[in-house]
C-alpha cells in the first residue's frame, strides 16, 4: 500500500495517436515519485504537453496505462480524491480562465465544488487563497480581461490550490508572460512547493526554467524520451546528442560573444 503512495503519477508504455500521422507520444514510460520536482523539456512537437495531459488524467492514452497514486485514471471518478489531488497550471493564462467570472468567483467555485463548502465560506477561502498568491484588493473582483498575464496566472494557481492538491503539473507556465514577471511566477511556484510539500511537474521548452525549479529532468524529442536524470548531471554531462544541443544552447545564452569561442553553426535540419 505505502509503495503505491510513493509514486504519484505513472505512465507505462503510453502511446497517444490521432487519426493520421505519427503518434504524439509513443511507448513512453515515466514515473513521478511523490514529493519530487521533475522537469520535462522538449521543443514544440516533442509530445511533452500530450504527456502532461496523460499524466494528469485529462487524456486517455491510445495504448498503455496511466496511473495516479497506484490507481488507473480510467477508474478514478470525478469526485474521488485522486482527481482533486492532481491539478494543472496552463500555458495560456488568457484561455485558462472563464472570461465571464471574476477571480474571486472562479476560485470560490472551485472551493465550493471541490471542498463542498457553502457559498459564503467559499468566498472567504477564495479571498485568502488569492491573497496568498499575491492578488489582493480590488483586483480580485475584476474581469479577467482587465488583468495582466501575470495576474491571470496567479488566479490559475490559486484555483488549482483551492482543490488542496498534492501534485501540481505546470505546462509552460511562464512562456506567455513578460520577462520581468516570469520570475515572480517561478518564485511563487517554488514557494508553494515548499510550503505545501507538493509534487511538481514542470514542462518547458526552456531548460533554464526547469533547471531552476526541479531536481530531475526528462528530455523529450519526437514523441519519446531521449534522456533523463538529475538536473545537474544532465547539464554538465549530457549523454545524447539532442540533449547536448539543448545544453549548449543554454550555456551559450549565458555568455557574451567576445568571451565565447564560436562553434560552427549547424545547417538547418
Amino acid at each position, binding site marked *: 500500500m505505502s509503495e503505491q503512495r510513493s509514486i504519484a503519477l505513472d505512465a507505462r508504455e503510453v502511446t497517444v495517436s490521432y487519426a493520421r500521422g505519427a503518434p504524439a507520444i509513443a511507448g513512453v514510460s515515466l514515473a513521478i515519485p511523490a514529493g519530487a520536482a521533475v522537469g520535462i523539456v522538449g521543443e514544440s512537437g516533442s509530445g511533452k504537453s500530450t504527456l502532461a495531459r496523460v499524466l494528469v488524467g485529462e487524456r486517455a492514452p491510445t495504448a498503455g496505462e496511466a496511473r495516479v497514486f497506484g490507481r488507473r485514471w480510467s477508474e478514478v471518478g470525478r469526485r474521488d480524491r485522486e*482527481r482533486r489531488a492532481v491539478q494543472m497550471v496552463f500555458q495560456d493564462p488568457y484561455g485558462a480562465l*472563464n472570461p465571464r467570472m471574476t477571480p474571486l468567483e472562479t476560485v470560490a467555485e472551485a472551493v465550493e*465544488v471541490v471542498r463542498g463548502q457553502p457559498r459564503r465560506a467559499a468566498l472567504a477561502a477564495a479571498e485568502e487563497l488569492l491573497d496568498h498568491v499575491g492578488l489582493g484588493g480590488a483586483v480580485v473582483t475584476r474581469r479577467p480581461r482587465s488583468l495582466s498575464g501575470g495576474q491571470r496566472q496567479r488566479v490559475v494557481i490559486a484555483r488549482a490550490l483551492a482543490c488542496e492538491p498534492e501534485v501540481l503539473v505546470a505546462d509552460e507556465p511562464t512562456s506567455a508572460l513578460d520577462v520581468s514577471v516570469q520570475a515572480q511566477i517561478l518564485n511563487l511556484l517554488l514557494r508553494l512547493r515548499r510550503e505545501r510539500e507538493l509534487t511538481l511537474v514542470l514542462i518547458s521548452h526552456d531548460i533554464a526554467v526547469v533547471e531552476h525549479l526541479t531536481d530531475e529532468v526528462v528530455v523529450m524529442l519526437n514523441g519519446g524520451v531521449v534522456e533523463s536524470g538529475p538536473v545537474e548531471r544532465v547539464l554538465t554531462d549530457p549523454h545524447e546528442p539532442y540533449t547536448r544541443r539543448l545544453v549548449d544552447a543554454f550555456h551559450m545564452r549565458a555568455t557574451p560573444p567576445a568571451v565565447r569561442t564560436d562553434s560552427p553553426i549547424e545547417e538547418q535540419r
Partner: protein
Amino acid sequence: MAVGIAIVAAIALLSVFAPAIAGDGPDRLIGAPLQAPSGEHWFGTDALGRDVFVRTFVAARVDYLVAIFGTLFSLIVGTTLGTLVAMARRPVWGKLLMRVTDGLIAVPFNLLILVIVLGFGTERDVLGLPKGLPGVLVAVIVVGWSIYARLARAEAMTLRQREFVGAARLMGFSKRRIVGRHILPTVILTTGTYAVADTVMVIGLLAGLPFLGAGVLPPTPEWGTMMFEGRGVLESAWWVVVFPAAALVATAIAISLIADGLLDRLGAGEEAGR
C-alpha cells in the same frame, strides 16, 4: 440602442392602449370607408371603414407576438440542442445534427413556411389565438431552430477546447455544471444576439405571407394583411398601406439598433486578448 428600445417600447405600449386612446376597436366599422387622415381618424380609415390607427397598432400585437415567441422558441430549442450535441462524446451526434440542419436550411425558407402553414390549416382554433397564427408560429420554430443549433454547436465546440473548461474537468466539475455555468452562458450570448436581429426577419416573413396566400386570417389586423388588402387602393388611399408599412419599417430599424447595441456591448464584454 436606447433609441431602438424606445421605439419598440412605444409601439408595444400603443399596441395595448391604442383602442383606448382612439376610442375604437380594430374591428369596428366606425367611419366612412377610405377617409384620409383627419382629426377624428389620425391614420384615416380603410376600405371597410375601420380606423387605421387602431388597426396599425393592434396589429403590432400579432407581429410582435410571432416575432418574439417564434424567435424565442427557436433560440431555446436550437441553442440547447446545439450545445448538447457539441458536448457529446461521440461525433455521430454532431454529424447527425449537421445533416438535418443542412436539409432544413437548404430548402427555401418561405416555401417551407408556406407548406407548414397550409398543412397546419387555418381553421384550427388553438388557445383562442387569432386564426392562422398558430400555424405561422409552428412554421417559424420548425424552420428557425436549425440556424441557432449550428451557431450554438460551433461556439460550444470552440469553448470546449478552451483551457478553463479543461481545468473544470480536472477539478471534477460535473458535466451539468460545466455546460450550465461555463458553456451555455457564453453560447446563449452569441445566439441571443443573433436572435434579436432575427426577429426582424420573422416579422418580414409573416408580413409577406398574405401575398403568398397564407398568413393570419382576417379580420385580425396584421401589417402584412393590411398592406395586402390595401394594395388595390394604394394610389387613392395611400394611408391604408403606408402606416402599417411605416410601423413595420420602424420596428425593423429599432430592432437593428438594439441588435447593434448588443453587439457592441458583447464585443467589449468578451475578452479582448492581449
